[in-house]
Structures are given as C-alpha cells and as structure tokens.
C-alpha cells in the first residue's frame, strides 16, 4: 500500500502554510486594533484599583502596585454628586426602577404593534408604520419640550412614570420594526389555522405568536436594557432630581465635584455605571449583534 501511495503525485490545492506574510500582517493589524479598543477598559480598571498617591506619579498604563478597593466602596456609598454624598447606589437603584418597567412596557407594546401590523392590518397601518420609522430620525430635542408639557398635563412630570412613558414612546420605532419583520417571517398558515379554529386577537398572540418569538423578545430586551440604562437626556429632563438615573449621577460625581479630584473614585464609579450594559453585552454576545444588525439591515 505504502509503495503505491508513494508513486502517486500529490493532487488538490497546495496546503497553505498558516504563517504567510499576508496572514501575519492581517493578524498584526487586528491585534493592534484590538489592543487599542481594550485600552480604555484596562485604564479604567487599573486606575480604579490604585490609591491617589500612586495616580499622581502619572503613569496611566502602569498596573497598580498596591491594589485597593477603597475607591469602589467610596464610589458606591459616599461619593458626592454636588448635592448629596451618598455615592452611586441611589442612582443604581433609580436606574433599575426606570429600566425594568420601561423595558417591559416598551417591548410588550411594540410586540403587540408589530403583530397587529403583520396579521391584523387596518386601513392606513402601513402609513402609520412608515411615519413611525421616519419619526425615529427626528432629533429628540425637537419633541422634548412638548413632551414635558404632556407629562406635566398628565401630572407625572418629574416622576419615574414620565421617564418610563418617554422610553416607551421613543423605543417604539426600532422595536416595532424588529417585531414586524420577525412576525412577517413566520408562516402565515399558523395564524390562519388558529383564526379558523376561532382564536381571537390576544389568544393568538399569547398562545401562538409569543411562544414562537422568544429569540426576538430576547433581542428586543437586550436592546432596551442597554439603551435605557445608558440614557442620559431623558433621565436628566423627566426624572426629577431624586430619581436621577446612574448616568446622570455619574456625570455629576465626576464633572461637578469640588475640591480634590479623586480619579480612582471617578473610574470606579464609571465602571460601576458601565457594568450592567457590559455584562448584558458579554453574556448575550451574538444576540446583541443581531439586534443592532436587524434594526439596520432589513430582511
């Protein structure tokens, strides 16, 4: 056997060596770029673990000589936001109180709208949907003041309800698009069969459509949780001082602090604020990507 094999010429494409010059250049560029993108995260973490004297030496890239968690404790419990010195903890809980209901309400409303748009078209439904999509391009500043007046009329301005309402309204375009496209890709026969069997609007939604759409619900929830957590403008305008979300409090801690600037506390506070979206992002990975890609690339 071996002698026969030895006489046969090798065939097929020549196996490419792994380290061709082109590959090395490609990997080189990608790795350098990746290091650049990682750099701020690294700086954030190392700075937050240093003491102030070590920071004043002035090497921002040096790893901490003496690891201290004091800045983290201070950022969480006693950093000053300009008015009070309770740290970021109240802001964290405010953000939780804003993000949870806003996400649930906006995802539910958008899911039902997307379902109505696909399966229960009414006169002008496509017109309203187009308006909704175009509306997502209107700068928030244009609609901000009238929204303040509306929430004031509803007697909810300066409360968590106002923020929840605003997030639901402005989350509608992208989420409705997401759900509409997903429901449209499901086989219509399912809907028709359920309809023939006498199921109504809500029954079809809850017992057939929703259970089949868990992936898109996950995408929508990821999109909303990160988006709402990261919001600054609506929080600062609608929430009222005692309900300021974490982003607003973080900005106040860092930018309106008086006296000695504690860079390590600032960075610890920044990581704490970034933690929720970062965890969501690293855990969900592909689904996060799917969410932002689905909103932009149709079909």
């Amino acid at each position, binding site marked *: 056997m071996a002698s026969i094999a030895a006489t046969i010429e090798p065939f097929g494409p020549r196996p490419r060596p792994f380290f061709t010059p082109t590959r090395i250049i490609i990997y080189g560029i990608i790795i350098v770029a990746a290091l650049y993108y990682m750099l701020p995260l690294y700086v954030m973490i190392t700075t937050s673990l240093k003491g102030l004297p070590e920071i004043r030496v002035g090497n921002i890239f040096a790893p901490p000589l003496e690891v201290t968690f004091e800045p983290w404790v201070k950022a969480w419990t006693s950093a000053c936001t300009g008015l009070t010195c309770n740290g970021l903890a109240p802001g964290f809980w405010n953000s939780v109180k804003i993000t949870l209901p806003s996400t649930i309400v906006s995802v539910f409303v958008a899911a039902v709208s997307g379902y109505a748009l696909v399966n229960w078209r009414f006169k002008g439904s496509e017109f309203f949907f187009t308006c909704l999509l175009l509306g997502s391009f209107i700068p928030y500043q244009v609609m901000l003041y009238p929204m303040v007046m509306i929430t004031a009329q509803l007697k909810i301005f300066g409360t968590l309800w106002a923020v929840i309402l605003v997030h639901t309204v402005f989350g509608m375009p992208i989420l409705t698009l997401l759900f509409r496209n997903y429901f449209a890709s499901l086989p219509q026969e399912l809907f028709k069969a359920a309809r023939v069997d006498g199921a109504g*609007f809500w029954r079809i939604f809850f017992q057939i459509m929703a259970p089949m759409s868990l992936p898109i619900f996950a995408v929508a929830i990821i999109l909303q949780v990160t988006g709402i957590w990261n919001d600054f403008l609506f929080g600062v305008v609608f929430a009222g001082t005692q309900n300021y979300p974490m982003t607003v409090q973080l900005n106040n801690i860092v930018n309106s602090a008086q006296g000695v600037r504690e860079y390590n506390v600032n960075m610890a506070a920044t990581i704490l604020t970034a933690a929720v979206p970062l965890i969501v992002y690293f855990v969900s990975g592909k689904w996060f990507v799917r969410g932002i890609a689905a909103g932009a690339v149709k079909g």
Partner: protein
Amino acid sequence: MTDIQHAGALGRPVTADRPPGLLHNLFVRNLSAKVAATPMVVIVLVVFIGCTLWSLWFSFTDSRSLPNGAFVGWEQYERLFSARRWRISATNLLTYGIFSLVFTMVVGFLLAVLMDQKIRFESGFRTIFLYPFALSGIVTGLVWQWIMNPTLGLQSTMRGLGWTNFTFDWITNTDMVLYALLIAGTWHGTGFVMVLMLAGLRGVDEEIWKAARVDGIPTWRTYLQIVLPMMRGVIVTTLVIVGSGLVRTYDLVVALTNGGPGLSSEVPAKYVINYMFNAGNLGQALAASSVMLAAVFVILIPWIVVEFGPKKAR
C-alpha cells in the same frame, strides 16, 4: 355595498348573517386589534407629528420660559444665525460630523474586511471591537477625559517614559478639542459600522468571489470595485443611521468637555437644551431644534432616494 367590498378587500372573514355598517366597521370589528394598534397611532399622531408641528410653530414666537410668546416670524432664526455660540456649535458639528462619518465608515469597513479573511477567534475580536458601543456616551466621555487628562494622563505617562516634549493636550486646547471628541466618538462607534459592514460582506454571493478569482482580479480590487458597489444598500443605511446619530451628539460632549474650553466644543443639541431649560429662551431653543430637524432630513434624502427612488436595472 361599499362596506362589504371594503371588508372583503381586507381579506377578513365577514360575519355572514349581517353586513357590518360603517360605524360597526370603524369601532367594533376587530376591536382588540384596534386597541392594540392604538399606542402606535397615538405615538405617531401626538408625538412624532403633533409635537414636531408644535415645536415648529413656537419657533416662530418670542416665547421666553413658557410657550406663550407672540408670533414674530423669522426673527428667532435670524437671531440664531447671528449668534456666535450657534455658529460655533454648527461649524463644530459639521467638522466633527464629517470627520467622524468618514473615519468610522473607513475604519469600520477596513476592520470588517480584515475580519472577513477567515481569521481565528473572529467572534472574540468582534466582541472587543463592539463593546464600546454597549457603553453610554457619558461613560465613553469620562474614560477618555481621564486618558487625555494633560496633567496625569497619556501626556504625563509619555513624558515619564522619556519623551519629555510629548504633548497631548487636545482636550484643553481650543483648536484641537474637536479631535479629542473625534477620538472618543470613533472609539465608541466604529464597532457598530464594522458589524453592519461585515453583515453586508457576508451577504455577497460566493460566486462573485469565484468569478473574480478565475479572472485573476486581485483581492483588493475585487473589494473596491465589485464588492463595495454591491453593498450600496448597506452603506447608505449605515451612513444614514450614523449621520442622524451624529446630529444628536449630546452626552458624549457633556461628559468629555461640557462644551469647553470656552465654547470651543459646543454642539447644537447642547445649545437647544441650554436655551430650553437653563437660559429660558424657548423660542430660540425651538428655532435651533428646527434647524437640527432640517439637517436630519438632508441626511435622510440619500436613503429615501435609494429606498423609494427609481430602481436602476442591474
């Protein structure tokens, strides 16, 4: 008769025993579906159309802290374009926007091309390039504010390493602060462009690549002259999304420089918020926001042309 035709045209089963009347059709038939669609209709009519028209109308009044001013025609707009702060804000946004758009698009596309070379650990690298996009503008601004801090950040680090003349004070330098903003902004946004471009590249038919290889066209030319034109749709969509996001630039500036030093990094979105809530000059704020709206529509035009315009035969 018309009612029945109407119902039939919608493809809904009509109750056989009783042809529905107009009122019945409007309010009772498929009641749940109508209730469910109400939020969308209300949001479109009240917020997107109503609030926008309201703002446009009151931008023609001399309202101060409350919307009760008298009609003054184009006065607010004249004042706006003669205001130094607005002119700085608008030119800043134009400079920053164009640089940022070109930079994120080019770098995003190049990264996507590199990621498309069947590399190992692709998802790992993608995770690294995209994570800044998961962070808020505030967080991004504060991190870069710290890195670019002239006394303790990158500048002092490099000086400590021996380059005693190394200067990197863009964040406090009136002429360079926009480029500091650019560094933070592109770090935040390129991953997003890369992901969309990568999706576009993966959507290109494998046969195209085979044909190009058979014809002996070098890879870079295939990308530039065949693949790139095929991705026109993705590119326009990305441009529109990134562009309309840039017009809104707000929290990044608030966190990174808060408009300073002086007015040198002010942007229109900040101008609006400032006049709306702090300076109590609503008419002026609304005029500025209307100009922002107009800018967004200029950006939207290429997208509308591609999406709804006459389709060219390929």
